[in-house]
């Protein structure tokens, strides 16, 4: 029996027989629309950037322009993987008792991760970009070589992400690793006088374009090295995870007594806080996202890295949306663990949704405070920050809350190794939309109406959704209740399969 083939088949079956699959049929249409939109957007960006560089007609500046984008794309790619990718240590649990060496299973999961189509998504940008910039000067063979190297770099980023993510699951201090790595590379690009980063990039770029094995083999070597490190480390950590000691005694139980005055809403708010802070799955994702937000806001406020218009908008939007996505992407999936208990109590779910909305809206305060230095330093305006905060708490949360109706897979609360937690198509679509819609719509609005009017439109759209939140939350509740039997059954099934 070919174990790789069997596990590959099981991976496919796991997705196909996922309780979310039924809904995925509808969601698939949306995912195709979403993918088409972003593919189109990336193609457009690739062509436009390529054309802009082509106009310069200077060989070395064009070459540099072609390469200097890569580190930034790697950062975005690294961040995008958080909501969409699971690490093999999280996926390996169902296979632990198989009579197969664990190392082989981990290796397979690593290979599967490398072959994921997610790693090809950036080609929507690089193919048109390469066609415009590379082909004209260097020829079609150089383009093929260039794209091959880009794919290797994306694979390296994939394994680098898995490595960092695995280490961060053990100790959050490891978050410094990607921050220092990407921060270091980007800083080197911005201080060309002190360090010959530009020349190094140019040499590497030329090597890639000319299919120079002196450059390509070390690149592949880095990928292989990362793969080996991931494989060995994950095997070690799987054992550590199995021997984990649980939290048998709690020193201090937080009561959040100030919430007593808010009645039932306060009670569910308290439940939400306890869920976030007492479970490994939620606690870890909150920590990671807060550290990322703090890092991004700090870099924008105190360094020139994000001084361009898109950079500022990217950081501000990311700071607000990422917290919401982290809190709400798996909305109701954690409650799947005790959904029966909630459902035998009247209108519990509606109050729960309201508490979740209030909490998520309150969390907006954090990125807002973190962006104050950037406002003081006049890098961004107060109106802009308020607008993005409002748009996020209104429209983006409205989008994310729709998942309360469609999430039907219970997510274990207190384990790092989870039974295969796939991200459903609907989750992907809505998360993609929540993260990227503001980033897509804002430049268009700014271009069409100017900055102040664009900001004001965002502000009013957000406010409209915030002020009508009770209405759309009730609508979500009614839709949830209308499909409650299906959802409860799926929650129960996925809970029992843990």
């Amino acid at each position, binding site marked *: 029996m070919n174990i790789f083939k069997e596990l590959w088949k099981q991976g496919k079956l796991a997705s196909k027989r996922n309780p979310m699959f039924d809904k995925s049929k509808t969601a698939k249409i949306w995912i195709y629309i979403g993918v088409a939109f972003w593919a189109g957007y990336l193609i457009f960006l690739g062509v436009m950037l390529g054309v802009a560089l082509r106009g310069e007609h200077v060989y070395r500046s064009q070459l540099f322009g072609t390469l200097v984008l890569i580190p930034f794309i790697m950062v975005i790619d690294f961040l995008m993987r958080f909501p969409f990718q699971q690490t093999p240590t999280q996926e390996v649990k169902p296979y632990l008792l198989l009579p197969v060496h664990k190392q082989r299973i981990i290796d397979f999961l690593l290979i599967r991760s490398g072959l994921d189509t997610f790693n090809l998504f950036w080609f929507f940008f690089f193919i048109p970009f390469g066609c415009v910039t590379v082909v004209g000067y260097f020829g079609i063979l150089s383009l093929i070589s260039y794209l091959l190297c880009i794919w290797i770099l994306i694979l390296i980023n994939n394994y680098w992400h898995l490595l960092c993510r695995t280490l961060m699951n053990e100790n959050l201090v490891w978050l410094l690793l990607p921050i220092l790595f990407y921060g270091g590379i980007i800083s080197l690009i911005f201080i060309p006088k002190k360090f010959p980063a530009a020349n190094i990039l140019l040499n590497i770029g030329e090597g890639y374009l000319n299919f120079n094995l002196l450059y390509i083999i070390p690149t592949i070597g880095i990928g292989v090295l990362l793969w080996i490190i991931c494989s060995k480390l994950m095997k070690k950590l799987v054992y550590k995870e199995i021997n984990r000691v*649980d939290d048998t005694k709690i020193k201090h139980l937080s009561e959040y007594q100030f919430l007593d005055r808010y009645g039932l809403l306060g009670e569910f708010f308290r439940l939400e806080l306890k869920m976030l802070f007492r479970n490994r799955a939620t606690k870890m994702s909150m920590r990671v996202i807060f550290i990322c937000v703090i890092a991004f806001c700090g870099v924008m406020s105190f360094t020139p890295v994000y001084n361009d218009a898109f950079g500022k908008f990217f950081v501000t939007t990311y700071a607000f949306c990422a917290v919401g996505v982290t809190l709400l992407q798996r909305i109701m999936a954690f409650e799947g663990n*005790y959904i029966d208990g909630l*459902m035998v109590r009247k209108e519990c779910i509606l109050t729960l949704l309201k508490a979740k909305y209030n909490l998520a809206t309150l969390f907006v305060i954090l990125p807002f405070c973190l962006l104050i230095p950037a406002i003081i330093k006049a890098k961004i305006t107060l109106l802009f920050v308020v607008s993005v905060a409002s748009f996020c708490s209104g429209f983006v949360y409205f989008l994310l809350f729709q998942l309360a109706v469609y999430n039907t897979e219970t997510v274990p609360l207190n384990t790092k190794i989870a039974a295969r937690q796939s991200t459903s198509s609907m989750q992907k679509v809505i998360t993609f939309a929540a993260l990227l819609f503001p980033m897509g719509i804002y430049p268009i609005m700014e271009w069409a109406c100017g900055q102040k009017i664009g900001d004001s439109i965002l502000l009013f759209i957000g406010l409209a959704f915030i002020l009508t939140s009770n209405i759309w939350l009730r609508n979500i509740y009614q839709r949830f209740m209308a499909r409650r039997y299906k959802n409860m059954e799926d929650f*129960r099934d996925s809970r029992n399969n843990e």
Partner: protein
Amino acid sequence: MIEINNLIKNFGEKTAVNIEHFQIQDGQMLGLVGNNGAGKTTLFRLALDLLEADQGNVTIEGVDVSKSEEWKKTTGAFIDDGFLIDYLSPEEFFYFSGRLYGLSKEDIDERLKEFEHFMSGEVIGQKKLIRNYSAGNKQKIGIISAMLHYPQVLILDEPFNFLDPTSQSLIKHLLKKYNEEHQATVIISSHNLNHTVDICPKIALLEKGIIIKDLVNENNSAEKELEEYFNVEE
């Protein structure tokens, strides 16, 4: 009164529940017995609107449970771990459950005193989250939380499971007392015939989703018939 009308639930080809008509009077204590797969838990889930019936309905005080949520105010239930919020301590879970029914912390503390013996010093004040308790203690927490708001209808699935003999005896007395003092309708399912016969004046025997016997149990009169059905030999 709880009324089951024309209730059918199928899982694929298999019929899990098929009950034409069945009534449970107010204040009655009913034991539901049957072999594995007889449909006891499915029937409970249907009665609690946790499953969709293919046909028919269950009404509590005339209210179709699938059409309104009003019955939830006066019903308490515990079926399995899916009713427990395991990242809370037992005290927090009791306060949370109680507050959903409008009880104050003081009310809840007062009501918990009734269960002190049942908890045998192992539930309250342990500074532990529910997930770190044994199966038996989780069972106790679930049962207590279902009873805290003094529901008029109490539904418990296998309440004797995981409990030590002393606790089994205690829960029998607690349920009997609760039924008498509150005139509440109590429905329990169990594989333990002795316990069921001891406390339930009425027993329904379920087989392949059908109630094949509706037994009146006075002075353990149903015991012989049940033993014959389950082929229990002395």
